[in-house]
């Protein structure tokens, strides 16, 4: 995140227009570099960073609660600069998968690698490159929002922590309440503070659980804008989960669909549209419905 002071720049909640090549050209280039299936589809409003090498690899992730298996061997790869949406209905296993990827929940089986470091073999190195933002983050007692940012920034020996913290808090509309305790914040404000902390330390990967659930539409736009900056300047990768598919559509490179702990598909919006022969005007909700219907038809037991 760039270390601009609050006075030096104007925050606009509206997305910026592309100024480089056309979105399709960028997507083709990114696809070629990342060697991922040729389904990448550039969002019309986001300036895409170059998609690089893989930063998060998961293979065969299985998780069981009691006698119920909630993740049935998920394979997943996230590339630098990429923004992927983890989509699925309630109970699909999105949050559980995110927590397993972040190392918050022990997996039963599988392997997760973050920037080349195994979460099981080299936990500290792996976790240092990744930030997970749960749907309702909690904070330390007796520390204000400002204190949290300073503590984390100073712990990481960041240069110019205060201007960066000021920039983030102001962009997220928390500047006026920076000296309040987060316990007095609303859920949306807590989420924004969590995001500010995550962006402050410039991780390689950010995992966001239900990012838009607690935010008002204007704050959601600021969220996308900050993620755009994060990805454009630092080539950060973002994996977010949501069941509000209409809201996460902006700027998403890939949609990873889940149902009952199973992966039912992974591809760009364009790829999904072509796969199910839908009209160009189709939204992701209709794609999602078609994918679930197909999966249910092909795997009736797994879809139960």
């Amino acid at each position, binding site marked *: 995140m760039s270390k601009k002071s609050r006075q030096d720049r104007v925050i606009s909640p509206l997305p910026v227009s592309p100024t480089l090549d056309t979105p399709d050209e960028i997507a083709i280039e990114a696809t070629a570099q990342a060697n991922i299936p040729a389904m990448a589809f550039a969002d019309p409003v986001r300036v895409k960073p170059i998609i690089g090498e893989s930063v998060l690899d998961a293979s065969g992730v299985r998780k069981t609660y009691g006698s119920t298996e909630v993740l049935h061997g998920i394979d997943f790869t996230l590339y630098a600069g990429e923004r992927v949406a983890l989509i699925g209905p309630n109970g699909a296993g999105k949050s559980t998968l995110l927590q397993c990827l972040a190392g918050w929940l022990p997996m039963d089986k599988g392997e997760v690698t973050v920037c080349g470091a195994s979460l099981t073999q080299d936990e500290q190195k792996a976790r240092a490159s990744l*930030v997970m933002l749960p749907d309702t983050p909690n904070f*330390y007692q007796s520390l204000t929002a400002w204190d949290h940012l300073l503590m984390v920034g*100073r*712990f990481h*020996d960041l240069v110019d922590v205060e201007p960066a913290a000021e920039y983030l808090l102001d962009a997220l509309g928390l500047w006026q309440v920076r000296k309040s305790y987060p316990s007095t914040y609303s859920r949306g404000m807590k989420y924004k503070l969590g995001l500010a902390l995550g962006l402050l330390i410039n991780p390689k990967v950010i995992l966001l659980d239900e990012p838009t659930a607690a935010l008002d539409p204007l704050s959601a736009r600021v969220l996308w804008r900050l993620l755009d900056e994060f990805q454009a300047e630092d080539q950060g990768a973002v994996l977010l989960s949501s069941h509000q598919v209409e809201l996460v559509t902006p700027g998403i490179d890939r949609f990873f669909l889940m149902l009952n702990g199973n992966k039912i598909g992974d591809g760009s919006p364009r790829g999904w549209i072509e796969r199910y022969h839908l009209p160009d005007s189709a939204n992701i909700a209709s794609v999602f419905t078609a994918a679930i219907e197909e999966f249910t038809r092909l795997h009736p037991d797994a879809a139960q």
Partner: protein
Amino acid sequence: MNPQFAPQITLRGMLSSIVTLRLAQFRWTLAYWSRALGLLPASGKWQERITFAYIYLLIVALMTPTAVSLLNGLYVLESKSSPALVAIALQNSLPALIAVLSIALIVIPWRAWMLRMTFGDITYLAAAPFDRRLLAVWRYLEVVLFISIIGLIPMTLLAPALAGGSLLAIDVLPAIGRGWLALLLWVMPMLALGWHISLQEYSKTPLPALTRWLGRFVILVAAGVVLYNNRDVLLWPGRLIVLLMRGDAPAILIGWPLLIAFAAVGVIVVALESRGLSMTRAAVGADVLARIQGLGYMVLVDRQLLLSILGEKRASESYAAGVLPKATGLLAIPARTALFYRRQYGQTIQLFAVGLAMGIGLLAWRPDNFIVVVVTAVLLVALLPSQLAAVFRSDMGVPFISQFIPQPLRSRLLASSLVPALIMLAGMIPPLVSLNALMPDWAWGVLPIVWVLSLIGHTDQVGKGTLRSDRNIFSVILGSAALFFVLWSAITSGVGGPLALVQSVAVAGSVSLILLMIADIRHGGTNPQALNTAKQPA
């Protein structure tokens, strides 16, 4: 509102709702305690249930004859050899206890929390048409019943004194029954007086807090004035209850109608006062209380849990005094802890006071033999480490922030242990300096135990991976052994003054290394593979 859609709220319907809710809560509590006592094991194995039931049966079977025999001996002895003493106890001591209980029921503000706890549970029942009077009176009667049941314990112990020392059920049960009923009827007006003040707090037009406190103060002063002029007046209710317990005919004639009339007045006062209740006001803070309730027996086991919930509430209310000290890298952790203690100064004072007490305590502590040192080590490890690690414990429960502090575990433990240990040492050192001449030679050598206690408290919180652990019997034994080692080496070193301190610091350093290694093992650090495969099925 269209009468066709107006909800039909009847007294029967409301009572049915409350009874249903309370029964469901009772079943939940029963299941909770059954789990806590091992009668509903997670494995579901009957073998485990039977084993625990057998253990409890053995305990009861072994202890009952001993307790009964002991009590019987005491009562026989007292009633035959000291009838005058028994008479004094019944005439003065017991009535005095009842008087204190009565005043406490009126003036203790915590009583208001009981009301909140109920409203937190049943707020969803309290859609607008639900009668507030019923909610208040219901909870009032529950509390009355609860207090009178607690009163059954001393009643049961006292009953044989009224039955000539007999422990036979036929002799004591009537007295216990009469005493319990009399106490229940007396608690009703006393509690109603207290609730009369407390319900104001939740009224739609509440009295100022100062007025409510003044009300309580006036009651206390009035009790003091009465006590000063004629202390017997305060003993009258208790004496009446004792007489009713004995079954004295004149007392029965006047006492029962009097107590029933008082009880009726109590119910009426609560019902009238609760008409103007604001459910919103009453339910505020109910979540905090619900969390305390949810802790169940853990409140008794680990007081820090309770303090941490209350502290969290206070933290969100208190003014954010002070600023984060400018420290980078690992030092940011002690800086955070220092700011916590700056803002939660109540906890700082507690730590300081404990240190002060420990320093002064060295004057009286005489470790003449091995056992004294062992007992001291066990007591200190049982009582202090969780208090010293309160901030760390609270922080460990916040994985979202913990992910930003991914330094090696050992460094974090050392950095977090520092500030609370320093605060306690700040309390402990002044008595050592000012009373140095009276202190034993080895006194300075005891100082490092504060650091060891703090480190024990912190290592206790370390669980597998990012998980937080709780203290258990093994960690207490281990901590006691570590502390004993430091204490014993300080006492038996044969050196005094600063030299004792230097030697003890070295020993404490070695013990610290061992504690850190154990923390690593608990964390899974020596076997990283264990972290993510811990729950893998065989």
